[in-house]
């Protein structure tokens, strides 16, 4: 009994000569065949990685790219806008450059109105993105009902962009605004949660309240 346990615990010699491998040299711990097999596999692996890894990085690179620098675009004079009704303006999304008509998007702009707006974002103008927060269809402002309505899956938003009904998961995105002289400038897009806290721009369909903000990480940039 005791002998058996000793036997199983006894370490097998690492020397090829001790294991009786033909043609083995004293002190050798690996056969030449095993060495060359391993060597050939490593060489093949390095050669494959040499083209596969750059190709993979090439395909995955855009995930880590910096978004375009914020650029302010002139949408009109301060006289063009009021604090009760939206005015439709058109800007070019910097990250969509080169797609022709598809890079243009509608922005609804009105002056900040302390009676209507509860947000503490501090921008002089409210610039609402038309990207629906369900799955990204373009919403339309309907003056008669004073609401934004999405044609795809029935998302409805209040005048301030908060969700009134349907599948959207958070209020409509907004744009940074600024006044220079008598010109109204619209900058980069940002996202808000249901209490109008500012977040970096997130894709539609991503919740930002509570624990959800951690489940949808912001864009990693290098």
């Amino acid at each position, binding site marked *: 009994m005791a002998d058996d346990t000793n036997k199983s615990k006894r370490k097998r010699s690492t020397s090829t000569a001790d294991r009786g491998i033909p043609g083995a040299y004293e002190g050798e711990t690996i056969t030449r065949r095993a060495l060359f097999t391993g060597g050939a596999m490593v060489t093949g692996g390095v050669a494959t990685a040499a083209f596969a890894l750059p190709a993979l990085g090439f*395909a*995955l690179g*855009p*995930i880590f*790219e910096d*978004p375009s620098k914020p650029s302010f675009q002139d949408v009109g004079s301060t006289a063009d806008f009021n604090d009760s009704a939206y005015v439709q303006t058109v800007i070019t*999304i910097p*990250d*969509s*450059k*080169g*797609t*022709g008509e*598809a*890079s243009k998007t509608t922005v609804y702009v009105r002056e900040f109105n302390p009676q209507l707006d509860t947000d503490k974002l501090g921008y002089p103008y409210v610039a609402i993105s038309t990207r629906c927060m369900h*799955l*990204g*269809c*373009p919403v339309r402002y309907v003056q008669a009902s004073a609401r934004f309505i999405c044609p*795809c899956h029935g998302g409805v938003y209040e005048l301030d962009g908060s969700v009134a009904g349907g599948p959207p998961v958070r209020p409509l995105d907004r744009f940074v605004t600024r006044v220079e002289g008598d010109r109204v400038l619209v900058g980069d897009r940002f996202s808000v949660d249901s209490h109008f806290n500012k977040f970096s*721009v*997130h*894709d*539609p*369909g*991503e919740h930002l309240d509570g624990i959800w903000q951690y*489940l*949808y*990480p*912001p*864009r990693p940039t290098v």
Partner: protein
Amino acid sequence: MSFLTRNKPEAPPQETPDIPGVLKRGGNGSGNGDKKGGSPTDALKSGAAEAGIGVAGWINERMGTAPGLRHMLFRKVPNHDWTYTLGTATMFAFLSQAVTGVFLAMYYDPSPTQAYTSAAHITNEVFLGEFVRGMHKWGSTMMIILIFLHMGQVFFYGAYKYPREMNWLIGVILVVLTLMMGLTGYLLPFDQRSFWATIVAVNLNGTAPILGPYLADFLRAGPDFNAVTISRFYAIHMLLVPGGIAALIGAHLYLVTKLGTTAPPWVKAKKRRELAREDI
């Protein structure tokens, strides 16, 4: 082809000289062999048959493919019902998509400014363009329908069970790849419908927790729909996924010929005695 007609009754096996390792000679060559100096057409026919056998033999001697090919083409297939042809139907839908797709690629330009124009050019100006584009468009729907019918047939006949689990898994991957073809191909006409449908589809991918935002960025090649999104979809649609589908169809077919098909569930296994009598 001579090897397709080798089992014709008018060509008894003892009359045809057996060329070792080569497909046997067909009916025409041997049938006219004893009437020397027939009409010139007969001579031409037998000459063509000889040439065909010669070429097939030359290739086989160097590649050794004849036994495998013969096994695949002339294997005995039980005659159960027509639902067993759904897999082949799906494969031909894929072949039709591949061929029409290659020719559409000759006219199509995957750039945001030219995609719609070049697609419209195919439909309106290219000879048979409307027909080939229509085949590709409707063929894609046919392929989705056929692959799901095939999947349902395999499921309800219990053909996914031992020892065919690997073939079921390969088939499931093929379904996913086929759906990827549908998704990436939908953007390419680049009209309002395909643009917004792709926006929705990419955002749908983005809603998965943790990995979703990365997946959406990967598909769009950036934070927003941009100038290279369409060429990315095009490359996935015409190179990456079809390559995978073609390779997996090869593996799928290999396993079908190796394992054979399953009997329908209502066909009862024969008793051992009956089986033994039939084998004699």
